[in-house]
């Protein structure tokens, strides 16, 4: 049997179209792999084997008839906050343990429309709140590179599944780094597009002004292909942007000659691990050999991005999660005495500690007397950070720096100290606050653990970001490395 798991998304799509193998074969092989590694990695919350095989069978028929889309027959997985009709969508929370969505998210619909076959729903930090996948009601996900370490979060299940080669690609979401940080920690490619590029309809909201759907894959080329199929305007999402989606695959091969790369002074600060920094500097030298120019830039307000984020995101989350009240769906406590008892216990039992912490923080910063000092001020600083980025992109084409300060850390190492955990997103949050497209690609190892390189572009410059990432991957092989035991 061919080792389908070592093929990339692009290779599988091409092989299926050429009918070198069938979707049922690929799907069966990967389902077997998903099952085999589930107890060790805990990457999935739901595996939908029957549905997947039925879809694979249908895909094979379509392909046999000469039809099919860009991803027909290719197995993928969805982060468990994309609503899937008929399959439960838990958001990693006890609150939605029993929730079966009556509709499909736009992203789910689009990828199915492109022919992708869904193997299941991946584990995640509860309601996407976390940077280690340790806040999931379904238990932590483990990092395939070292199972004592975290895979990052919140899209830890999707990242581990792609890194362990259980699926060639998975959907994910990024509110403060939840695609790029696990991509870095798991040694894969993770792309967060511009805010508004991918529809948020059917994506259970954490912080609406920051949430953006994206992809976790093994290469920039795969990310380009998958993103092209899921991006685009959606009339159901007022914040999605009505501009055509370029063919990201078509522009991958453009030369980088003359590309102006901005090095953010604020990204190379004392918080950055020295070995990590070495890998980043080496990657920058690679870019120079490709014809790019390095230019120092500064974003003076960027160091305030973590505090700004931890005001804005909890504020929105406190309101977004109010709908989980035990009335219409989700967890309801046993035998409520009265309405308040039902609210208190349903939410108290349904939400975990990190979600509660953020709901309380968010409620506080929006309260009368505190709104101006926290929420309003944070929004003002957010506008300044955005202006900093806009100004920087007047003199550079992309910004490049680290994705995270350190490689993956041990399970439990940071759970006792939320602030330390929050600082893990120090380099990724800026792109969310400004709504910019950003990718993380593997750029080497520190003590056998992968390190991520982050490339940030101006609004709607996904093609340029993917092009820069792909050019790097053409001359390096970090992204082709598999964790021991998963090749």
């Amino acid at each position, binding site marked *: 049997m061919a080792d389908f798991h070592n093929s990339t998304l692009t290779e599988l799509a091409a092989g299926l179209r050429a009918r070198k193998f069938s979707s049922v074969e690929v799907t069966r092989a990967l389902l077997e792999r998903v099952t085999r590694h589930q107890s060790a990695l805990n990457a999935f919350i739901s595996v939908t084997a029957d549905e997947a095989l039925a879809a694979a069978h249908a895909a094979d028929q379509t392909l046999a008839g000469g039809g099919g889309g860009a991803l027909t027959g290719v197995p993928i997985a969805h982060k468990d906050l994309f609503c899937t009709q008929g399959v439960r969508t838990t958001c990693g929370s006890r609150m939605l343990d029993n929730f079966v969505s009556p509709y499909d*998210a736009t992203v789910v619909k689009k990828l199915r429309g492109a022919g992708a076959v869904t193997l299941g729903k991946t584990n995640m930090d509860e309601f996407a709140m976390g940077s280690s996948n340790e806040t999931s009601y379904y238990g932590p996900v483990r990092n395939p590179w070292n199972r004592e370490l975290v895979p990052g979060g919140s899209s830890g299940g999707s990242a581990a599944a792609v890194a362990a080669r259980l699926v060639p690609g998975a959907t994910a979401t990024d509110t403060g780094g939840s695609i790029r940080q696990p991509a870095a920690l798991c040694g894969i490619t993770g792309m967060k597009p511009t805010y508004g590029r991918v529809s948020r309809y059917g994506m259970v909201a954490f912080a609406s002004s920051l949430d953006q759907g994206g992809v976790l894959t093994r290469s920039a080329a795969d990310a380009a292909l998958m993103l092209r199929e899921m991006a685009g305007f959606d009339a159901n999402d007022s914040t999605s942007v009505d501009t055509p989606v370029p063919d990201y695959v078509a522009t991958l091969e453009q030369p980088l000659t003359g590309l102006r790369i901005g090095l953010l002074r604020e990204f190379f600060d004392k918080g950055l691990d020295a070995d990590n920094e070495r890998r980043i500097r080496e990657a920058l030298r690679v870019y120079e050999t490709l014809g790019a120019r390095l230019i120092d830039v500064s974003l003076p307000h960027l160091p305030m991005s973590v505090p700004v984020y931890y005001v804005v995101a909890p504020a929105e989350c406190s309101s977004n999660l109010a709908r989980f009240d035990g009335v219409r769906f989700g967890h309801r406590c046993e035998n409520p005495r009265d309405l308040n008892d039902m609210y208190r216990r349903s939410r108290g039992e349904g939400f975990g500690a990190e979600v509660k912490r953020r709901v309380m923080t968010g409620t506080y910063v929006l309260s009368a007397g505190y709104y101006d000092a926290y929420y309003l001020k944070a929004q003002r600083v957010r506008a300044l950070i955005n202006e900093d980025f806009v100004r920087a992109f007047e003199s550079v084409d992309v910004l490049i720096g680290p994705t995270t300060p350190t490689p993956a850390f041990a399970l439990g190492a940071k759970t006792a100290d939320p602030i330390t955990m929050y600082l893990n997103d120090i380099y990724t949050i800026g792109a969310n606050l400004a709504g910019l497209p950003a990718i993380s690609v593997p750029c080497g190892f520190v003590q056998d653990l992968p390190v991520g390189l982050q490339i940030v572009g101006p609004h709607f410059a996904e093609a340029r970001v993917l092009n820069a990432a792909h050019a790097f991957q053409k001359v390096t092989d970090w992204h082709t490395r598999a964790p021991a035991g998963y090749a």
Partner: protein
Amino acid sequence: MSAWETVIGLEIHAQLATQSKIFSGSATTYGAPPNAQANLVDLGYPGVLPVLNAAAVRMAVKLGLAIGARIATHSVFARKNYFYPDLPKGYQISQYELPIVANGAIDIVLEDGQHKRIGVTRAHLEEDAGKSLHEGLPGVTGIDLNRAGTPLVEIVSEPDMRSAREAVAYMKKVHTLVRYLEICDGNMQEGSFRCDANVSVRKIGATKLGTRAEIKNLNSFRFIERAINYEVARQIDLLESGGTVVQETRLYDPDKGETRSMRSKEEANDYRYFPDPDLLPVELDEAFIAAVRATLPELPDQKAARLGTQYALSPYDAGVLTASRELADYYEEVVAAAPQDPKLAANWVMGELAAALNRDGLELSAGKMPAARLAQLLQRVSDQTISGKIAKEVFEAMWADGSGADAVIAAKGLRQITDSSAIEKAIDEVMARNPGQLADYRAGKDKLFGFFVGQVMKATGGKANPAQLNELLRKKLSG
């Protein structure tokens, strides 16, 4: 009483007459089975998002233009956060700091005929909540989310009203206006048009406002007046007996005719308003506003002024006839078909017709008395085929079976007698039968003239032309 001044401001909620909800495609028809008109967006399902209904925006702008307000080219939807079972998302989408309409005014007419201008602070768009059902559900509460997401415009007045009567006049004027603009059906029983009243009292001459109570959810003009009057009396009693008014929300109980406390300021929610990140700010350009302006109909005040001039009507008559666009249109249709006497037409529309509709509990729109049919009756009065008095009898017959004026007149033989010889003959007979009265009259008892008129009318079955009768009778009696 006279030592105190009442201060009232109203927050009117008008349900916009859109086909679908403000942020979803669900229908807004009233009276559907519970939850039949609530889709996933209305139910606040995980992952769903609101999409603004452009028709609601156009309606709010229309209202703003009609009250001379400033239309915001940039307005923002905000979330008003609180928990309630009939509020599916745990927040209501409303407008807070940046409403779509600000600084308008509405003129009302006071009882003494004076005009008074009531300031409109703002009008903003928001979604309605659903409702909780208790009847027939022992031990549990039912939730009907059909109304959740229905578009509302909340019209907030300045505290410019000084009596319950003024508040009612203002409320009625807004009611008239929203129906003229065709942005709200004005149905108060179904809750399409309702208000909260902020009521306070202060010593006459005081400049500072007194502490106010907010009376919630008043949905009839009668209740508004009663609730405010009760509340004013309550506050004055309280203050005169050395107490203080507490800022609170009160409910009016129409059965008991009193207001009672619902929650105090301390118990009030902190709504934690913030801009809704799921919706973009509403950006309107001048072209859009101009296009909406072009759809404005003739407004009530303009129409009343025109009717007054065009048909020589009193301001009162013009005001009554323009209370609804439908009534004004009806009146103008009648006058167009019976143009001889617009004042007569006004009297009939406001008098006999209004009384008959009221008596039978019918709306003008039921079409019981088409304008052309009433016009035919008025024509017969104007051309002296029948007298005004007989016309009332004819009207009742027309009302009863829907027949035309001419048919009723012919069938009942009500045609007025204008033949002088016939009238003279009747006069002669009456004079012959009443020699005593005739002698008295001729001896100077002038008021017996009325007696003779009555007798002749009786003899002619009321059909003698009154003017002719008077003239001939006077001639004959004087010998």
